[in-house]
């Protein structure tokens, strides 16, 4: 075993145990068994926490909207997710005529895979991860981009107009927010000088939230859009296109889409806790608990955003990504690069100066950008007069 594998206590102990009673010629089997046990444990842990959080999310959304939320099954409704699972499993699986059968069936699986797979490289505690890739954050970005493909497959294969509209909107939105999200991470990499998530956590003398406020805000908003949650949920806008790419799905396939959609904020919170909040590190409490607490905090922020804001229009969403988040992301990279150049090995005082400058830049640039852009960011021709042909303003031909 090499040094990287050696550091992973989670996996090393299991491998040692399997290796102790298997013959020497079966080393590969010990490796495979240990890997399977670790991976199975992590994947199921992610699912169980996600399922619990569907209940938490629905209860809290109920509170936000001055109603009760699910409260019938078990104490305070804790068993609601189990009831949901049983219901979804026993529902009729309707396959409408004209669907592309294979693509229609593969799409829910393909959306589910990246939602779980990001946890392969996220450290869940000290020395607790499945793999410590030296390209960790790049792996996460590459894997989570697959969900775009899954959404388009689902919309295209359904053979339904609303599905196709939802999928086309979804792809346009996901690729637009991909760019600022990827740019916002560069600031963190500049400070740490590594792509491995374990190195990124260990490089944080003070949490990168203090050093990268602009990066944090961009990443938070962009990943919220990547998950199609409410302020950005055009993909499945019920009042316009029924349920978007989900329209023709029912039964367990619908359940898989929902599960993937609920697992996505968990993944995004875990990535943000690692990149910006020092991951597992913290005083007194065990490292796993610290990580979980940080994830819960960020998860609540996502939920808060969802419960508070109404849905945006298409032109507002696209304008927000390309005209505001993208230039701010580029600005953040060069401000950080200049600071790293000035202080390659910063002392504590220099770190705090850096934090002060970056907060100034973040607040200043946000104020200036929103003043400059203001309503012009999403300007639209005035509404058509009622007598205009086909609802279009007279004399206006786009």
């Amino acid at each position: 075993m090499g040094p990287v594998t050696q550091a992973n206590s989670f996996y090393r102990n299991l491998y040692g145990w399997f290796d102790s009673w298997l013959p020497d010629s079966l080393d590969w089997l010990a490796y495979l068994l240990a890997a399977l046990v670790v991976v199975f444990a992590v994947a199921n842990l992610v699912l169980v926490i996600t399922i619990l959080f569907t209940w938490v999310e629905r209860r809290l959304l109920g509170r936000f909207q001055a109603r009760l939320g699910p409260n019938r099954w078990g104490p305070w409704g804790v068993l609601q997710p189990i009831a949901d699972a049983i219901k979804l499993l026993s529902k009729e699986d309707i396959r409408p005529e004209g669907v592309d059968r294979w693509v229609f069936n593969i799409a829910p699986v393909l959306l589910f895979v990246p939602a779980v797979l990001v946890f392969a490289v996220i450290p869940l505690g000290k020395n607790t991860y499945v793999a410590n890739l030296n390209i960790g954050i790049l792996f996460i970005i590459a894997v989570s981009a697959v969900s775009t493909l899954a959404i388009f497959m689902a919309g295209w294969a359904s053979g339904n107009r609303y599905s196709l509209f939802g999928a086309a909107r979804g792809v346009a939105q996901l690729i637009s927010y991909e760019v600022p999200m990827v740019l916002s991470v560069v600031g963190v990499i500049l400070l740490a000088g590594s792509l491995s998530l374990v190195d990124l956590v260990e490089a944080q003398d003070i949490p990168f939230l203090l050093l990268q406020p602009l990066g944090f805000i961009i990443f938070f908003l962009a990943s919220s859009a990547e998950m199609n949650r409410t302020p950005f949920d055009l993909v499945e806008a019920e009042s316009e296109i029924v349920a978007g790419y989900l329209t023709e799905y029912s039964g367990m396939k619908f359940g898989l889409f929902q599960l993937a959609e609920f697992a996505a904020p968990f993944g995004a919170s875990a990535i943000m806790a690692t990149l910006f909040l020092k991951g597992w590190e913290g005083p007194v409490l065990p490292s796993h608990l610290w990580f979980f607490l940080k994830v819960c905090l960020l998860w609540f922020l996502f939920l808060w955003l969802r419960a508070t804001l109404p849905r945006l229009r298409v032109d507002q969403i696209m304008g927000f990504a390309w005209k505001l988040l993208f230039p701010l992301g580029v600005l953040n990279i060069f401000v950080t690069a200049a600071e790293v150049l000035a202080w390659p090995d910063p002392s504590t005082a220099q770190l705090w100066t850096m934090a002060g400058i970056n907060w100034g830049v973040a607040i200043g640039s946000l104020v200036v950008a929103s003043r400059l852009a203001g309503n012009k960011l999403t300007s639209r021709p005035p509404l058509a007069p009622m007598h205009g042909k086909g609802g279009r303003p007279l004399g206006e031909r786009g």
Partner: protein
Amino acid sequence: MLEDYFRQYGLIAVFIAVAVALPTSLLLLSWALSLARIRPHKPNPVKSSPYECGMEIIGSRWVRFNFRYYTFALLFVVFDVETVFLYPWAVYFKQLGLFALIEMLVFVLILMVAWAYAWRNKALEWR
């Protein structure tokens, strides 16, 4: 060192296998329930027609979509390739120093000119 490298990717491969197996097994379980006649399966022509708010479908199921989507796809390709260059640059920035900063500034400025051009030509508007 090399062995270590492959061990990490082996774990990722196992993770991908498990991540595919979990949802597939759920779908298979649901299918097994239909074999045991717990899950109903009663298709009829109305139920299996594509959903369109209860109306009968008019015209083709396949519709043309807005040309706007292509301009956004083009912009995405340009600026996502930019990030491909930014990542290795960011990792080795401390070793490379001032030269790398100016070099990247020139590269990104050229791209920002393209971005401003796209904005001026209303490629970023959605109508």
